[in-house]
Each structure stands twice: as structure tokens, then as C-alpha cells.
């Protein structure tokens, strides 16, 4: 019920092939490689795939997609953020009082999460996502976009809607190359973000900012290449002291193992309870089946 069915004959294969990325878009601080989403195998599965490499201090600019994403961290560590529309900002700094002025607005933002090798990050449709590599090792992230997911009400072309910059759409380059319909529908792939198509006056009014900032919003003053940009002095974000971004991996793994052991101990310490519960559960099922044969929905409670 979560996915659209592939079209007739879309999955009739005589032979399957191993696929490698066939397009690469270079950025200031990384690269995004993509597999052709028009490939028969990927079309049958209704997904699009990409591999993103982020160098040290590389920031992947915020973007959202027209379908849910699942991201696997193959290598590296860093931080990421997901902006859920309408959710409250949760971290804030005390407001600074400047001489002769009112309090200066300080940063408030949503939770910043840490990721490391082996993590899966789930990004719902339309939720802006950014990530940053704050370690030496390049981050390699494999992203799957589930274009046939029912959350996607557009066609099967994967789209990334960038909030900033003027980079080209990685997946739309295939449409451009193949001269397909997608390119015509999108009006070309010259590069831009979701705000760059608005009039300057609209943006000035909407953000209540001057014309120079508007030019930056539209990506006009930005000659940095691609969707991954370098933050030379390192990114500063507010995060609680309990988060330990540079905690050794071994230490974390030890903690996880200890937690596993604790759980195991708890289970081992009450074997009788468990059996009794199972027996009781089985017995109560029988009673329910006998007494209320038509009320299956209640059984779920």
C-alpha cells in the first residue's frame, strides 16, 4: 500500500546487469555520482540512486526531494539536520543584549544529529535535509530515492529542490542528455534553487531583507561550484554537551555492547515470568477466539 505498481512489462528481464554510476557532478567540497534512473532495472524497482562524497568541512546544501530518501553512510562521520515543517525549534542560546539596543536575535534551530559509518538516515518526502563532514575522512553516503512511493505525487523523475545555490539538478541531466520530456517539462536545467525563480520584490518583501541579500538568496553572488560547499573555518552549531561528536568509535561500540548485555541480563533474570506470560497470552487468545469470534479488531489491542 506504500508503493505504486510498475507499469506493464516494465520488469520483464532476460538478464540483469551490475550497474555503476554513470554521471558525476563535481562540487567545491565533494562529488555526487548518480546511476541513470531510466535504467530498466531501476525503473522496475521504482527507485533512483546516488553516491555523495563530502570532503572535510564540506556542507551539503539543504534540499528536499519529491519522494522519501534512505541514506546509508558507507564511510565517515559528521552532522546532519532535518527540518520538519511546523515543528518547533528546540535549541536556543540566551539572547545577547547590545548596548543601547534591544536583544539581538540569536540562533534557534532544530535538533542536529550526528551520523557515523553504518548509519541509515531516513528522510521523508519534502523535508529539507543538510549534512556536514566535520572529520578528516571523506563522508561517502549512498542515497536511494523511492520515486514510486505513494508520497510522491509527481512523475517518476527524482527531483532535488535545493533551498540555496545555483547548482544543476543531478538527475535531470539524464533528461537533458537524452532530450527527453523531463527536460522540456522542467524548462531546462540551467541551475538554480527553489527561490531563484521568484521576483526580487517578492523575496524582499517575504524575507524583509535588502536587494543584496536577495541576490544571494537567488544564488547570483555565488561562484562556488555545486551543491557541496566548503566551510573553511568549520561549521558552528549549537548542540548540547551530552552529544560527543568526537567520541571514539570503539568507546561507542563498547557502550552499545554493554547496553545489549544489560538487555540480555534483564531477559535472563526473569525466565519464568516470560514463560508464564506466553502461557497466559496463549490462553487468553483461546478464550477470545471462543467467546468473541467476530471481533478480530479488538484482539489487536
Amino acid at each position: 500500500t506504500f508503493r505504486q505498481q510498475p507499469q506493464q512489462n516494465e520488469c520483464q528481464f532476460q538478464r540483469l546487469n551490475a550497474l555503476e554510476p554513470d554521471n558525476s557532478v563535481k562540487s567545491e567540497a565533494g562529488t555526487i555520482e548518480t546511476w541513470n534512473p531510466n535504467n530498466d532495472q531501476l525503473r522496475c524497482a521504482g527507485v533512483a540512486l546516488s553516491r555523495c562524497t563530502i570532503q572535510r568541512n564540506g556542507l551539503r546544501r539543504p534540499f528536499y526531494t519529491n519522494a522519501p530518501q534512505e541514506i546509508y553512510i558507507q564511510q565517515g562521520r559528521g552532522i546532519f539536520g532535518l527540518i520538519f515543517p511546523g515543528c518547533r525549534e528546540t535549541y536556543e542560546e540566551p539572547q545577547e543584549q547590545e548596548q543601547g539596543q534591544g536583544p539581538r536575535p540569536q540562533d534557534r534551530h532544530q535538533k542536529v544529529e550526528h551520523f557515523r559509518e553504518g548509519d541509515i538516515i531516513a528522510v521523508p518526502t519534502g523535508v529539507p535535509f543538510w549534512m556536514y563532514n566535520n572529520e578528516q575522512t571523506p563522508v561517502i553516503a549512498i542515497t536511494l530515492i523511492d520515486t514510486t512511493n505513494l508520497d510522491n505525487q509527481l512523475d517518476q523523475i527524482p527531483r532535488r529542490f535545493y533551498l540555496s545555490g545555483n547548482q544543476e539538478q543531478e538527475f535531470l541531466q539524464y533528461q537533458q542528455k537524452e532530450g527527453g520530456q523531463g527536460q522540456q517539462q522542467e524548462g531546462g536545467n540551467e541551475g538554480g534553487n527553489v527561490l531563484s525563480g521568484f521576483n526580487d520584490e517578492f523575496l524582499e518583501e517575504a524575507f524583509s531583507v535588502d536587494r543584496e541579500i536577495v541576490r544571494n538568496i537567488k544564488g547570483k553572488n555565488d561562484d562556488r561550484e555545486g551543491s557541496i560547499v566548503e566551510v573553511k573555518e568549520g561549521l558552528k552549531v549549537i548542540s548540547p554537551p551530552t552529544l560527543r561528536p568526537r567520541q571514539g568509535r570503539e568507546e561507542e561500540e563498547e557502550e552499545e555492547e554493554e547496553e545489549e548485555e544489560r538487555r540480555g541480563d534483564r531477559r535472563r533474570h526473569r525466565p519464568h515470568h516470560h514463560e508464564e506470560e506466553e502461557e497466559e497470552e496463549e490462553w487468553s487468545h483461546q478464550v477470545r477466539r471462543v467467546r468473541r469470534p467476530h471481533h478480530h479488531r479488538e484482539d489487536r489491542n
Partner: protein
Amino acid sequence: GLEETLCTLKLRHNIGQSTSPDAYNPQAGRLKTLTSLDFPILRWLGLAAEHGSIYKNAMFVPYYNVNANSILYVLNGSAWFQVVDCSGNAVFNGELNEGQVLTIPQNYAVAIKSLDDNFSYVAFKTNDIPQIAALAGLTSSIRALPLDVVAHAFNLDRDQARQLKNNNPYKFLVPPPQSQ
């Protein structure tokens, strides 16, 4: 159980005259959204609706529909619409008048500026719990980003980034400049 559910389902709900809009600004206008949470039959249909009225020169900040397409019909007056695709192209930039319809695809950014005092519209949404995400203003995605992310993503200095995040104190509807 059928009689208690299907036969007595509520089939009508008024949003055009609502005295309890979801968003209201006396200088800018009002918005009311009807979802399956307050009108359960919409869950079956997988649809929702939104009614909006925006005063002259007031603006609905750039936003996008997170999980639905939106088919917008102008009830009264006229407004200037801009719709932008994922490549930053303005796929619509023009006036929409009474009786006209505009389809706003999922995730495409849209902004509306009213040209009339009595501009109002109804938007049909293809999801029973549609979500919108503002790109500017108090609850916008940009405001929710950390300051440094905004500064480096938009190539701004910290002070400019702070302005971009905080200057607009409104949620969805921005009053005309003189009344601010």
C-alpha cells in the same frame, strides 16, 4: 457498526465562513484548512481543502506543498502568482483572476501577492492531511536552519544570515509594507 460509521458520517463542513481560521492576521488575511482530522470522510477520499482570503498587497510567503498537489481556484478578485520548479525556473509568473484555476505541483515553490481587497481562493489538495512548508517567515525552513548553515549555504556573512532568518516576524501572511 455500519450504521454508526458510514450512515452517520458527517458530509458537510464549512470553511468559507469560518470564524476560527487556522491563520489570521488583521492586516493580511486569513487561512483555513480542512483535513481528515476535522472532517473524517476526507480520509476515504484522500483529499483536503484550503480556503484563503488575502487583503490587497498582502502576501502569502513562498511555500511548498510537502505531500500533495494543489489545484487552486480563484473565488474572488485577483492575485499575482509565482510558481518555481526544482531548477529555479519560474513556471508561472502572472495574474490569476476570478474563475481561473492553477495547478501547483507537489514540492514546487509558490508565492501569492493579492491585487484586490477581496481576493479569496479555494485550493483542493490531493492528500487528506496535506502539509505546507513555508520558505520565509517565522516557521520557515530557512529560519529553522542553524545560522552557520544559512550563512555558508547562501554565501552570506553572519549578520546577513541573521537578517534572512529573523527579519520577517510573520508566519504565512505578510501585511502590505506600509501597514507593517
